[in-house]
């Protein structure tokens, strides 16, 4: 199943949630914000929201900036 994460297309198993996806990528969840198909997903929505084919996921965090 194909999804686009941070602008890159990748193959993932069907049926995994946003939370599971983040765990697989081994990225600390604490400071992340996730946007799915242009809409922000609140943290409580991550475990319930299952990724579908064609989803566009943005995973962002705060970085240095002026």
């Amino acid at each position, binding site marked *: 199943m194909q999804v686009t994460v*941070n*602008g890159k297309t990748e193959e993932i198993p069907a049926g995994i949630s946003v939370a599971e996806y983040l765990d697989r*990528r*081994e*990225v*600390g969840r*604490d*400071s*992340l*914000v996730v*946007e799915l198909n*242009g809409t*922000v997903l*609140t943290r409580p929505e991550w475990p319930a929201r299952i990724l579908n084919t064609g989803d566009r996921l*943005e*995973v*962002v*965090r*705060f*970085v*240095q*900036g*002026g």
Partner: protein
Amino acid sequence: MDDLLAIGGQKIASRLFLGTGKFSANRFIPLTVEASGAQVVTVALRRVDFDHAEEDVASFVPPTCILMPNTSGARNAGEAVRLARIARAAGCGNWVKIEVIDDQKYLLPDNYETLKATEVLAAEGFVVLPYFSPDLTVARRLEKAGAAAVMPLGSPIGSNRGLRTEELLRILIAEIKVPVIVDAGIGRPSEAAYAMEMGAAAVLVNTAIATAQDPPAMARAFGQAVAAGRTAYLAGLPETSDLARASSPLTGFLYE
């Protein structure tokens, strides 16, 4: 001292806002913030790089500070709005510095798109501080659109060229009722002091501090300079005179 700057329902004692860009390592950020005395600190928002361990810069900002995410990277109002919403979802408050740029050489802001983003975000309850190219008509529209403060540039971002737009800044300070915060281009403490002497409500400094050899020392210098300029503004700067005016008495000389 009761001289507090009121923005977005907050009372802010330090009129030096600090940007976190360009620090050689995040670990210098807390020391520098502390040395500066800043209570408002900017950060940016970027995609996570899954292939490299990354730190969360927000965790390096003292929790007593107001975090002000910027919308850098946005090329139009829509992108800025999207970034602001994402930033708010991070749970660090509702302040946002609007930054919409479509020029990669001088990084000059697009005032019109900035105005549109300000309208949308102010209506959504954000505390909006737009960074813009100084222009009186635009500033009036930003104010009307609900900007909590306006942030005209002194000179191009990171140029350290100082208050080259002084003529326009002076007019904004005289005419705009929300706080006028000089953002971008300030390269020296003396320039920060001068902006405050002119009546700016605050200044936002990043490059000159973050890229100094000793960022905490330079941060302390800027903090002192901003306080000095503010104090002088409140105390009333003197007029200049074409001729000299003696500072010692003109009578009682021994040679009369």
